[in-house]
């Protein structure tokens, strides 16, 4: 059986060895332990010994040539034994170091154009590198500024942060084109979205809206809430108190608790308050029935349950129809004040802003109070200015003096 003679690691750090001289030659008979060749390692000249008995049939790495550790340098076999391909095996020899370096230009043949840099815009269209500081690049990418359009004021034309900052915040047209190029998505209207669209168009266009804005002092209401929450198991929100106050006020102002019915106005004796709830698809207005007759705890519990059912899309039609007035609260989004669109056939909606500590003049001194701005949208066909204003006056009384709710 043929035995391969490999370049051995003759020192701990040896990676390749140079055959200084073969002491045995092709055709010589060798015995295990015979010195086949002298090998120059990184440290010294060492002996490469035979590991088998037989005839040195083939020498693949000649005198003066170098072979990597572990590579085939010769073959020992029986005198007439077939050594197959072994003798022809391409030796991993390196006579000089040329073959390796020659290989490099060959690999970089004209077809292998320099790979396009994977990194983001380090060059402009002409392929010329744009010099920009790392910070300038980051700011540019955050603001959508094209560095190719920015001239650098730093050394050698380097674009620095101030250049990007003073650049036109992206050619807006180009940016839009960019978005268009990124494609778009046509989303079919969900039934809910269709209903929102239809009902709100029915609202704003044909209904002659007008708006009344007021700012309430909420200190006492908030204090009352904190006190109640400290005792009770049901947590009451500011919005629950607003709902309760609006419901109680509507009880006193039936003129605002009404529906426009084209040829007549329907005034309700009961107060059913619609509350706007944001859901994934849009919004829906579940109704708290007889809100004026319910305790704050009942309103809080019901409002939470309805909101949860609304978000889960589990409301039954009777749960989101039949409201007589609406409350919409965007305070949790930090909105100070806004105008809401009337939810027809109701005649009014109260848009509630965020509770905000503000400096106010009180008893001749400036003090910080928690204030809240509300805007009432009114259907002028049903509610006149003074009517709405009087209603808001009552809401104010109730929110600023919570005891007035049960007065």
């Amino acid at each position, binding site marked *: 059986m043929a035995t391969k003679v490999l370049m051995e690691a003759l020192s701990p750090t040896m990676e390749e060895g140079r055959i200084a001289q073969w002491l045995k030659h092709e055709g010589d008979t060798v015995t295990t332990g015979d010195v086949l060749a002298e090998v120059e390692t990184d440290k010294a000249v060492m002996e490469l010994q035979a590991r088998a008995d037989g005839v040195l049939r083939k020498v693949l790495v000649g005198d003066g040539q170098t072979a990597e550790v572990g590579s085939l340098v010769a073959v020992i076999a029986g005198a007439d034994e077939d050594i197959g391909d072994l003798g022809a095996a391409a030796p991993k020899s390196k006579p000089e170091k040329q073959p390796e370096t020659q290989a490099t230009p060959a690999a970089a043949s004209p077809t292998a154009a320099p790979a396009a840099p994977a990194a983001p815009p380090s060059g402009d269209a002409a392929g010329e590198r744009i010099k920009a*500081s*790392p*910070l*300038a*690049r*980051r700011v540019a990418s955050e603001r959508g500024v094209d560095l190719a359009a920015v001239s650098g*004021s*730093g*050394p050698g034309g380097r674009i*620095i*942060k*101030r250049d990007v900052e003073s650049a036109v915040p992206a050619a807006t047209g180009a940016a839009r084109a960019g978005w268009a190029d990124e494609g778009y998505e046509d989303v079919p209207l969900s039934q809910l979205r269709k209903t929102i669209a239809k009902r709100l168009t029915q609202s704003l266009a044909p209904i002659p809206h007008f708006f009344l804005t007021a700012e309430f002092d909420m200190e006492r209401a908030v204090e009352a809430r904190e006190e109640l929450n400290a005792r009770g198991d049901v947590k009451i929100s500011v919005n629950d108190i607003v709902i309760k106050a609006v419901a109680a006020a509507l009880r006193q102002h039936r003129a605002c608790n009404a529906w426009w019915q084209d040829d007549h106005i329907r005034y309700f004796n009961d107060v059913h308050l619609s509350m706007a709830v944001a859901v994934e698809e849009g919004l829906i207005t579940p109704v708290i029935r007889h809100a004026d007759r319910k305790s704050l705890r009942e309103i809080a519990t019901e409002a939470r349950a309805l909101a949860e059912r609304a978000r889960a899309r589990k409301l039954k039609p009777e749960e989101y129809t039949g409201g007589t007035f609406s409350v919409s609260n965007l305070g949790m989004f930090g909105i100070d004040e806004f105008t809401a669109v009337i939810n027809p056939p109701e005649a009014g909606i109260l848009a509630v802003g965020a509770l905000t500590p503000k400096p106010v003049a009180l008893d001749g001194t400036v003090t910080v109070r928690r204030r809240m701005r509300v805007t009432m949208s009114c259907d002028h066909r049903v509610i006149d200015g003074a009517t709405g204003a009087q209603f808001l006056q009552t809401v104010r009384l109730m929110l600023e003096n919570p005891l007035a709710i049960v007065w």
Partner: protein
Amino acid sequence: MATITYRDALNQALREEMERDPNVFLMGEEVGVYQGAYKVSRGLLEQFGDRRIVDTPIAELGFAGVGVGAAMVGLRPVIEFMTWNFALLAIDQVVNSAAKMLYMSNGQIPMPMVFRGPGGAALQLAAQHSQAFESWYAHIPGLKVVAPATPYDAKGLLKSAIRDDNPVVFLEGEMLYNVKGEVPDEEYTVPLGSADVKRPGKDVTLICHSKTVAVALKSAERLDGELGVDAEVLDLRTIRPLDVPAIVESVQKTNRAVIIEEGWPFCGIGAQVVDEIQREAFDYLDAPILRVTQADVPMPYNKQLERAAKPHPEQVIDAVRRVAYLD
């Protein structure tokens, strides 16, 4: 809060730690009867006696080795080198014995010791006695390297160094010993490995330590007055372990940095700091980081040349002009 010198702050730290722990002792040339070449150990021989304040022959390698041996058997030696220039004779004990002992004994042999003394240039002490060696020691795993700039930091850091269970190289400064500053009356320590903002600013970070903190502060003042540049001065205080988060936080704020050190530029502390910044705060940089160092020459003896070779505010201001693109 009392205003005392850096020298007396070190003296207080030594005294307090020796009172606190009977295993702490001070050894070095002239530390006892002469009360220290720079009077850092004033009064200590009288208070603690010659078993704990040990005068040695002029034999740095020998007494550094005695210190290593004492630490190995459980004492907490403080070895004073009259200057770190002389400590070159002892560096085998510092690097090969002290720094390696915990590692090579798998923590079985303790090495809680401090090597301390003045480093860097003073005035006209010439090439052989005017060298800042912090980068040499900071290069060695196993050593902590501390270089305080103020009396407050000097006291707090020396106390932490003495209590630390690792060998600590503590670099003072001949030109710092007379610097005065406020030091609390009550006990305190400054943790090793924490940098300190000596002056907050928003336009550029001046990273410095030891004597260059004063250079940076002076530069910051002039930058503010002359150029309207608001420089932040970050004192590293400890070179190793380096407070990388503090450096990164500052550079993220200012987007540019100039590093000032007493040592030579090649493989200096600033080179290491630059490496950390480019890796950890790359996207925050608006300019290359520049360094101000001692000129890359042996320190000249000639007074004017010496002044020119040391880092000074003009160079810092020039560097800031460049990183802030003011030219």
